């Protein structure tokens, strides 16, 4: 994966596939550490599955024999001096937390976070997504339930809405000095 935002799309897609109705996506800068946390209320995993999920040759799919999303994310975290922690419980959900050295030389770039979050929100209208980006001073949160409430019978997946969300997230992250390179 070229940048961290691509990992985010990938892991959120795992949540969608796990039939989650709610996904919490949190990006946090804590001192010298960048934390990316994606939590869902999907079907969760057994302890046995949980042990295997970072093995690139393990997948629950029947269409192919590799599952590379989580192993790639783990690699990106570990090469940045951090780690990937996965907590999961059947029937409760899964939380994937990656910690990365914020200024580590080998940390992949964040990529276009505004674009990523807007595409994830509009691309998965069946899921409620709570996006939070924060550091020790500022915090920005956007919740799709509020967006959908405002839109009423209009679809969150309409291109104009996606572009609006992208611009709104971008402007707020810049304003709050939360833009991560």
């Amino acid at each position, binding site marked *: *994966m070229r940048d961290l*935002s*691509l990992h985010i*799309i*990938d892991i959120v*897609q795992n949540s*969608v*596939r796990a039939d989650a109705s709610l996904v919490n996506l949190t990006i946090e800068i804590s001192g010298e550490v960048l934390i990316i946390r994606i939590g869902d209320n999907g079907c969760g995993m057994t302890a046995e599955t949980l042990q295997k999920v970072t093995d690139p040759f393990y997948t629950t*799919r*029947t*269409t*192919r024999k590799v*599952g*590379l*999303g989580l192993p*790639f994310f783990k690699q990106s975290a570990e090469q940045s001096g951090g780690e990937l922690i996965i907590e999961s419980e059947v029937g409760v959900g899964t939380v994937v937390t990656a910690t990365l050295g914020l200024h580590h030389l080998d940390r992949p770039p964040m990529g276009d976070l505004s*674009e*990523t979050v807007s*595409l*994830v929100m*509009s*691309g*998965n*209208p069946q899921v409620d997504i709570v996006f939070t980006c924060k550091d020790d001073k500022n915090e920005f949160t956007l919740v799709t339930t*509020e*967006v959908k409430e*405002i*839109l*009423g*019978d*209009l*679809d969150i*997946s*309409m*291109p*104009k*809405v*996606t*572009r*609006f969300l992208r*611009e*709104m997230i971008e*402007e*707020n992250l810049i*304003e709050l000095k939360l833009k991560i390179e």
Partner: protein
Amino acid sequence: MTKVKSLDDLKKMREQLQSQVSLRVNSETPEKMVQVKVSMATCGIASGAKEIMNLFVNELDRRAIDAVITQTGCMGYCFAEPTIEVTIPGKEPVVFGYVNAQKANEIIEQYVVAGNLVDGIIPANYETVKDQKNK
């Protein structure tokens, strides 16, 4: 100081958007709109699916085409990523493979706007591994 967009601006945009959509399609049901699904599992993402989804968002908005663009998981055509499924109102869904920026523009110009089929279609009778196993 430049004003930062907020949800209040979305409320304003909604009114404008609703009148435009109502005028053009006289219905808010997605079935009346062009539907684009972009396959966004690891295989698709690594092959550039995000850029393709973004291109569709920008281009369909620029052309004021009533559409909904969503993500979907792996469709089983990992070898042909990025793959997208396009449904034009009243027609069967069509899956396109190996969609790069040039192909995406061609699909919009030729298929979505003009209704002509273009190269790169993954035939509907093509079997994924899952289909074969279920036989």
